[in-house]
């Protein structure tokens, strides 16, 4: 489903963020990408979502080589992912459910169907009672769960999350991991980048360890 070969990314300023990385991720796998801050996790996330283009090498998602993807095909590739960004990228001038409605507006889902799905997604992350909430009144953990609800509302086959538990207290982090476990159990492919993996072990995921842009090891 995802295949990277000799994948490298050099930013215009000359920093080699990803160096000659190769890996495969199969359908339904749960993979955590770990490594210190600056190891290249976010860069890998952005390469997968076609936000950045590889400098060299190839990365193939669902049979499409992202290195050679036409610009006009990128939006449609992104729709096959649920994306949870490191900085969440929520709209603070909208209430909770309007944030979750955005991806369905993009694909043109009829309003009643969209509303039904948005409520279902909010329910899955435990925010159904906060659907009209102003985002500023949501806690860090609630905002993160809202970001996850928006990512999964179009039922993507791959969920990509960048540092979803960073800055959360232990309880909130555990709640997020439970949500991930539930998606994994229904067959969603999960790819999570985190610099803080020690409490992740109870999910027993496969781990890709990044260091200075290279894969140190893969286990699990």
């Amino acid at each position, binding site marked *: 489903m995802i295949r990277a070969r000799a994948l490298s990314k050099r930013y215009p300023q000359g920093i080699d963020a990803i160096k000659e990385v190769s890996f495969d991720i199969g359908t339904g796998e749960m993979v955590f990408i770990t490594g210190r801050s600056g190891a290249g996790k976010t860069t890998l996330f952005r390469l997968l*979502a*076609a*936000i950045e283009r590889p400098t060299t090498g190839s990365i193939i998602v669902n049979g499409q080589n992202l290195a050679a993807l036409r*610009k*006009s095909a*990128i*939006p*449609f590739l*992104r*729709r096959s992912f649920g*994306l949870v*960004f490191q900085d969440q*990228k929520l*709209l603070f001038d909208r209430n909770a459910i309007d944030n979750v409605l*955005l*991806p369905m*507006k*993009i*694909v*043109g*889902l*009829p*309003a009643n169907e969209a509303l039904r799905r948005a409520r279902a997604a909010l329910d899955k992350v435990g925010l159904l009672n906060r659907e009209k909430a102003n985002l500023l009144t949501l806690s860090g953990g609630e905002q993160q769960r809202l970001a996850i609800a*928006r*990512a999964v509302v179009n039922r993507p086959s791959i969920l990509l999350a960048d540092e979803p538990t960073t800055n959360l207290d232990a309880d909130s982090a555990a709640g997020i991991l439970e949500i991930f476990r539930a998606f994994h159990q229904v067959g969603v492919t999960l790819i999570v980048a985190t610099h803080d993996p020690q409490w992740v072990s109870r999910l027993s995921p496969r781990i890709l360890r990044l260091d200075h842009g290279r894969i140190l090891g893969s286990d699990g």
Partner: protein
Amino acid sequence: MRRFLTQHASAFGDAVRKLFASPLGTILSLIVIGTALALPAASGIILDNLRDLAGGAPKAQQISLFMASSADRRAFDEIELRLRMAHVGNWRFVPRDEALERLKAIEGVPEILASLPKNPLPDAFIVEPEDVRPEMVENLAKTFSSWPEVEHVQLDSEWVRRLDVFLRIGRLMILMLASLFGGALIIVTFNTIRLQILAQADEIEIARLIGATNAFVRRPFQYFGFLQGLLGGLFAAALILLGAGLLSSTLDELVALYGGRWAPHGLDFALVGRLTGIGALLGWLGAQLSVAVHLKKGA
């Protein structure tokens, strides 16, 4: 198909919401757009109606051929033959005696005439050309003056020609005015949408990151430009119709003084259609330009 329609409906809804989101800004824009459309349109209507008020005149256009005093019966026959062959329209011969009789009917003239030793008037042909376009009439007059024994050709209504030139200059000025104001309309829309794009930079970025196409991002702005132009056009039509309504009684009096009747045309449903159509088109164009300049293409 269903999704396509849903997307357009939602973009349209977004555009309507934007119009209502800042009512003051929208009203100001509509005033600017409405004025920009109303001024040239009103000038055009005034010009058209002016031309029509002068409308009876072209038909009364006449060309007089004054014969030399040496001309005799044979010369008149020759001219008659030529006029018949040329199919110029209606014409008649006015002998000098008939002309004199008519002149005598005017008050005070008989006394003057009595002091003259003989009839000073020439024999004449009066031609009412069928084709009254100024350049055609001009040509005819030129031809006539080359005919034998024709001493002088006179265009009886050169003022019609002058009016025509004047109207053409007027139309040209209105065209320039319209282009200028059309440009202003495009610029107003362009700038309004530039500000909207700036205000929504976050939302646009996020939508792109999660799979929005360029078309999706642009659509609400295009609808906004289109709608705002359309409403501006409606406003312009309302301004013109209101203005005409307020002026009509005064104009009635004025026109009545010249024996005419005020029956303006151009103040109808077609005007509303034209103004809204042009407004919508220019608004859409402004939006299109703004979006092309201010929205970087995705990834």
